[in-house]
């Protein structure tokens, strides 16, 4: 596939790296030649220097025969105009744009057919605030991912002593909870992935990823650890776009405090938020934190745009007694570093989250969602089975009859509103959503192929 990416920022370059390794033709446009030079050395892509929304630049980058445009420059306006140009002059089939400002996003019909022709709108702030919101809804969860529009969820938790299932084999999960269906998808023990066979014993301190219907999530979590008390008091360090969004979403149900360093921004926040308390000050100011009862906080969430400040203020908050701390970390290297340490409970990586969502739209066939688990050691894939027994490689077959690529397992099937756990004899029907795990991401193409319907199906 020929894909044009506008903007070589963190998201743009990571998406380029991901897609280039999957044998796509990638052209990256940016107006900073030195950034492009560095990327061109590292990746097998073509780069074009220029203003990303100008038609002549887009033409010289070969938009004429591109299959997809991904506009992820820093400027919302450039992204939107580029999509318009691509639509009007080049008839590009798929156009994805990142738009950050809530001011634009509030008017959804701006992005419908007649106005800005954006096929898929990505709003990282929105995605990240949703992600953090999920984590706050499930105290104790390390990662929460949605499948089939939230009907099934994948949750990562750390197993503790005292959890009823800890010290037992995975297969006993069913006996512990009659009537509830759940499946352990992956286990990380001391940083290594373990294939979750039925006779594996769950140990304390394992990170366990399981999949279940949304309503059963809490029940399963209680098997693995003493259920945390629901959160009440939350402190957000940083009142930027994400902070504001989160505060708005959380202020009805929780007591929220927002720390903001910039006086005018803090003033603006206090005017626009209703129930939150907006504090003017530095998130690493020990006295301020103590004064605001940091030791009573259930969650301390550092979401400024400065990685180092987020990491340090979260560590400080943890030491001062916050129950659970989360930090927003942009640099992938830092994320790995932090997740292997015990001090910060959850590292939130905007890239992985945004890219997961973005890649979902890029994938061919009927792959609906692709998410990386923590540390990227495994990929969770959701795909839809189309066609009938004659045209499809999956429909009408039982789970054990499907020729999956090596290292892939089918965990769950969402049929209508029902979430079924996959057994070896479960038969796949048309329009089922299959949720799979893949240990080697290079095999994604094989999975895509599996779900493509042969040409005779129309």
């Amino acid at each position: 596939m020929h894909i044009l990416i506008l903007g070589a920022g963190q998201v743009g370059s990571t998406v380029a790296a991901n897609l280039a390794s999957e044998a796509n033709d990638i052209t990256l446009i940016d107006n900073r030649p030195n950034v492009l030079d560095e990327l061109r050395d590292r990746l097998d892509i073509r780069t074009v220097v220029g203003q990303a929304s100008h038609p002549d630049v887009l033409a010289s980058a070969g938009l004429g025969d591109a299959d997809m445009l991904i506009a992820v420059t820093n400027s919302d306006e450039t992204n939107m105009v580029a999509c318009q140009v691509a639509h009007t002059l080049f008839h590009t089939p798929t156009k994805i744009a990142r738009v950050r400002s809530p001011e634009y996003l509030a008017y959804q019909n701006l992005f419908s057919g007649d106005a800005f022709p954006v096929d898929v709108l990505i709003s990282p702030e929105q995605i990240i605030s949703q992600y953090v919101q999920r984590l706050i809804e499930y105290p104790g969860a390390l990662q929460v991912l949605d499948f089939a529009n939230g009907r099934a969820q994948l949750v990562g938790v750390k197993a503790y002593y005292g959890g009823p299932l800890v010290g037992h084999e995975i297969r006993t999960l069913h006996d512990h909870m009659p009537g509830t269906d759940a499946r352990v998808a992956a286990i990380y023990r001391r940083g290594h992935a373990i294939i979750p066979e039925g006779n594996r014993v769950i140990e304390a301190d394992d990170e366990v990823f399981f999949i279940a219907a949304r309503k059963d999530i809490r029940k399963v979590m209680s098997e693995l650890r003493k259920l945390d008390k629901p959160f009440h008091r939350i402190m957000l360090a940083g009142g930027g776009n994400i902070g504001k969004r989160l505060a708005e979403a959380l202020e009805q149900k929780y007591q929220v405090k927002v720390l903001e360093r910039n006086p005018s921004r803090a003033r603006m926040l206090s005017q626009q938020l209703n129930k939150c308390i907006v504090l003017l000050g530095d998130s690493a100011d020990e006295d301020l934190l103590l004064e605001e009862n940091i030791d009573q906080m259930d969650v301390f969430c550092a979401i400024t745009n400065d990685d180092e400040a987020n990491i340090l203020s979260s560590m400080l908050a943890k030491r001062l007694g916050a129950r659970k701390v989360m930090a927003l970390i942009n640099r992938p290297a830092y994320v790995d570093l932090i997740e292997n340490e015990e001090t910060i409970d959850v590292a939130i990586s905007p890239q992985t989250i945004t890219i997961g969502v973005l890649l979902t739209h890029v994938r061919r066939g009927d792959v609906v969602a692709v998410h990386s688990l923590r540390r990227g050691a495994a990929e969770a894939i959701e795909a839809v089975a189309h066609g009938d027994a004659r045209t499809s490689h999956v429909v009408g077959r039982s789970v054990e009859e499907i020729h999956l690529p090596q290292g892939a397992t089918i965990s769950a099937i969402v049929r209508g509103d029902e979430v079924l756990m996959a057994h070896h004899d479960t038969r796949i029907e048309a329009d089922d959503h299959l949720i799979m795990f893949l240990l080697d991401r290079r095999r994604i193409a094989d999975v895509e192929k599996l779900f493509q319907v042969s040409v005779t199906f129309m």
Partner: protein
Amino acid sequence: MHQGAILRIIGLLLMLFSIALLPPILINLAYGEDAGQAFLFSYVLLLCAGFVLWLPVRRIDSDLRLRDGFMIVVMFWTVLGLAGALPFLFYEPLKIQPADAVFESVSGLTTTGATVLIGLDDLPHSILLYRQELQWLGGMGIIVLAVAVMPMLGVGGMQLYRAEAPGPVKDAKLTPRIAETAKALWYIYLGLTLACCIAYWLGGMTLFDAIAHSFSTIAIGGFSTHDASLGYYESAAIETIAIVFMFLGGVNFALHFASWRSLSLWHYVRDAELKMYAAVLLFVSALSLAFLHLNRISPDLETAVRHGIFHAVSIGTTAGFVTTDYSAWPAFVSVMLLFASFVGGCAGSTGGGLKVIRVLLLFKQGQRELLRLIHPSAQVVVKLGRQPVSDSVIDAVWGFFAAYVACFVIIMLLLMMDGLDQITAFSAVAATMNNLGPGLGEVSANYAALDDFSKWTLCFSMLLGRLEIFTLLVMFMPAFWRK
């Protein structure tokens, strides 16, 4: 540096190159000559050597860094220059020394076309074809070929491509993926060669000669299957065909690609480098034919036109075919032609020399300095076509020019130290560093008269020219070897 990864690729490339020895074996069978053993022996030796290098490190799969790229390209051209000499050495009736064999092989691979062999017309067809084949493989670059056909060179391919590609701006890719770019280049190269071969055949050559000459014409090499070079045919048609295809071979292949893709000639018309390239060749042609005619060096106007234009294009593009002994002409014409070879072909072509675009940039930079003297506070930007050229490119061009001149002077002095006269030494260095071929004085017909020291020095000079100085010189920097 990753020794394992480097050895692995060198091994693979050697095995790839050994395939080039198969066509001569077949030709040998077809003509029933006695050179088959030499080729078979070389083939087995190269294949085994490649395999032995590759076998212990075949599983190493680390990404190539910039330095590894330089290392591989330089090592490969050196190893290949030596390995390519094997068939000449093993073919006993040739009775040549190692220095001669290596000189012939390096001259072939670098598309120089300087030869030490005399009596080409009597040599077996397999040896003749092999020489042409060396030029053809060296023309587009065997590493570019490897990048095209070996998928595992993916990311590292760019490092290799950059170290081998000619021209000041080495990052321009025709397509997003390097393997596709390399493939496109080779398709164009193959297409041009085929067209040239058919044209020669229709023009009256035998099929064997047509194939052989099409190889060296598109590669801008200059090897021929006859001692008299293209003069053997005494045919205006063949000379015209050669002029057209040498000209095409000296054009940037990216332009061929863009025109072929959009099916229009617009890209050629718009390109500033191509305009300058055509202008230089026209000017040199006109000047030489006028001089030849007015001074009554040629017997009539037709001969003056044929000789003037043919040699201007052949020497100006650095091919080095001849139809008459041009070194016997007055020094004005022959030395002017030699200077034209410094301009050479366009960037991204198979031609040698400084490359037209560099000369153009040097010229424009000179103009800019003059303009600055007149308007001290003017902001002057060097532009190519309508595009501004960044100062870093211009700096690089100046650096390149300085290094070129310095290497030229040093090598010329080395040759004179070895006892060559000034004309011979000057023309030999110019002819080898510009990958031209025939020189003046003692080296106007062939290089057999030189002694071993001069030949080795000139081998180095040819490699310097083909790898555009810096790729080879970087090996001599202590910083390159530091961890």
